[in-house]
């Protein structure tokens, strides 16, 4: 393989990457234990093929759309958990925190007759307050996050029961609210958003290359950039094409087509948090505290404030997840956010490639890991497995993902690539 060295940035010689060396580097990182989302993506493909072959309904556009609605709550909670996990902390209360926030929104909508635009902000503020209290107890009082959030797990479970008056079910009738995680965008809007997303991604990528090239810095090879843009374009456009098919069993009565409304919402938060983690100094500081707290402290980073903030983001995203769960069911009950939701969310983050040891993870992990979880849940359901069997299988997958994380970390320590 030929590599040309280039002089850049005031005289430091670095290797100018080619498409070949780029792929080679990536493979080297994978072998060195930096797996990222690769195992999850492979798992997603294998599982989808197995379920698709066993039940042809798995690949129907109706089922495809269902996956997004079913997985939304887990994906939102997992996005918030990734911030917490990046610091090597854990939030066990995220599931019931989402339940509590869901109950708040349902009570305001139904019992107090508020409209969605006032009820949803109150639920979000509830999430922020919860996160602040958790973060304060961990950062300022110094209680391990495991204990704080275990106590909160129990506490919020009780709070949810109290809010719902001992276990009644409150249903929501606000049309807009219920549409959030049930209805679809019109076909036109689906295409407009899909194409806008592809164009925006391409613009960001090219802009990055251009601004680096202008300073004479090393840029990713053009082939890799085009491959990335092309890959995303194919993925989004094919998905949009499938989702804009008519998927109602009886279209004459109730037409069902278009991208589920929840997809652009997931996309929005994916972009927002990826931006925050990757492009702002706040995100940089989160990684730094997760990687080496002492180094971060000496660099003048307010470690305690960062620690509180990740719990705030975690519970805020749990609130979004709760809102989506209530919207999906059009009701809230004492088990909203309970049962397997928390474990699925932690599982989604870890399966997606976020490390339980802190310092390593990306927001996209939540989406990929969440997709794996949703596919298992949905596919095994289609195959007629019982809930018990689904739990066992998901548990095994989570164990495998955690083992991959731990082994990759050991391998990385051995190759000096932690």
């Amino acid at each position, binding site marked *: 393989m030929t590599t040309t060295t280039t002089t850049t940035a005031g005289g*430091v010689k670095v290797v100018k990457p080619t498409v070949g060396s780029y792929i080679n580097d990536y493979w080297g990182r994978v072998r060195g234990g930096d797996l990222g989302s690769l195992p999850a993506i492979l798992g997603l493909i294998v599982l989808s093929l197995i379920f698709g072959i066993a039940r042809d309904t798995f690949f129907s556009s109706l089922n495809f759309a269902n996956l997004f609605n079913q997985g939304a709550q887990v994906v939102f909670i997992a996005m918030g958990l990734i911030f917490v996990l990046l610091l090597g902390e854990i939030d066990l209360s995220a599931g019931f925190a989402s339940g509590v926030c869901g109950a708040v929104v349902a009570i305001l909508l139904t019992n107090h007759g508020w409209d969605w635009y006032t009820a949803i902000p109150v639920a979000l503020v509830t999430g922020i307050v919860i996160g602040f209290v958790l973060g304060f107890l961990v950062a300022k009082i110094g209680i391990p996050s495991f204990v704080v959030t275990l106590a909160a797990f129990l506490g919020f479970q009780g709070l949810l029961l109290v809010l719902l008056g001992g276990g009644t079910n409150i249903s929501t009738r606000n049309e807009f609210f219920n549409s959030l995680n049930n209805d679809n965008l019109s076909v036109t809007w689906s295409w407009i958003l899909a194409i806008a997303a592809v164009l925006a991604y391409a613009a960001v990528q090219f802009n990055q290359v251009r601004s680096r090239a202008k300073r004479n810095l090393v840029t990713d090879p053009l082939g890799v950039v085009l491959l990335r843009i092309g890959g995303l374009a194919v993925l989004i456009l094919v998905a949009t094409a499938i989702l804009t098919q008519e998927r109602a069993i009886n279209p004459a009565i109730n037409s069902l087509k278009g991208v589920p409304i929840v997809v652009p919402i997931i996309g929005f938060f994916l972009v927002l948090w990826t931006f925050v983690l990757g492009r702002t100094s706040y995100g940089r500081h989160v990684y730094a505290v997760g990687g*080496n707290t002492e180094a971060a402290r000496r660099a*003048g980073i307010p470690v305690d404030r960062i620690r509180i903030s990740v719990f705030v983001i975690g519970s805020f995203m749990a609130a979004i997840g709760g809102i989506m769960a209530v919207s999906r069911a059009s009701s809230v009950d004492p088990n909203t956010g309970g049962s397997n939701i928390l474990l699925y969310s932690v599982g989604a983050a870890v399966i997606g490639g976020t490390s339980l040891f802190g310092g390593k993870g990306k927001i996209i992990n939540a989406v990929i890991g969440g997709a794996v979880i949703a596919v298992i849940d949905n596919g095994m359901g289609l195959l007629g497995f019982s809930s018990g069997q689904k739990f066992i299988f998901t548990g095994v997958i989570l164990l495998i993902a955690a083992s991959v994380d731990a082994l990759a970390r050991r391998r990385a320590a051995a190759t000096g690539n932690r």
Partner: protein
Amino acid sequence: MAATPLLEISGINKGFGPVQVLHDVGLSVYPGEVTALVGDNGAGKSTLVKCISGIYTIDSGTVTFDGNQVAIHSPRDASALGIEVVYQDLALCDNLDIVQNMFLGREKKRGIVLDEPTMEQMAGDTLASLSVRTVKSLRQLVASLSGGQRQTVAIAKAVLWNSKIVILDEPTAALGVAQTAQVLELVRRLADNGLGVVLISHNMNDVFAVSDRIAALYLGRMAAQVKTTDVTHSQVVELITAGRSGNLGLPPEKPADFGGDVVDITPGGDK
């Protein structure tokens, strides 16, 4: 060699409760020179450095920087003056790359967005000025660097901010032979670039290889500050272990100075 010291401290006293660690210590650091700070374990080297860098506040004494008397109350004051310390454990984040580590806590921004091209360029310029010419990529994770390369990144991080004095705490302690030579070369280059360098070291070979002056601490007192060319290896070892060597160093202890007949020779402790 420059005649006026860049940093001059004199009469520094520092105690922790009943334990007096530094007695009337003076030290001069000249621009363009490497001043080696030597002393046995517990002689007070680390305490002195922490006083200079603002982690500890001094009990009494004066600090003069660039001709002006200054008070250093916090690490922030020290970095504002241009004093940077590279600690033994380097304080780098393994999960961040070279550029990210060098700018940690002081990131360049455009609006709220990190200005990566500018940071990468500045990092590259700084490394180049230290004659570091071959890294595979400035975007390499620090985890994948060798010990010597990490030390280089830590030193580059310290000189990135137009610092005037760089204090290095045992930079070669954990390194192999070849890497030690590289780091020492880098230390020499820092001084040649006009910085005042303080090198804390136990290794006499390193000290004689790069330093212009040697300051020897003995039980919390400055035994002697001499030009490296004026002393021999064994004289420095004597200064470290006994506090004096011939007519150099502390005056001989007079028995009358001690109240009782028991002479307590326990070092004051380093902490």
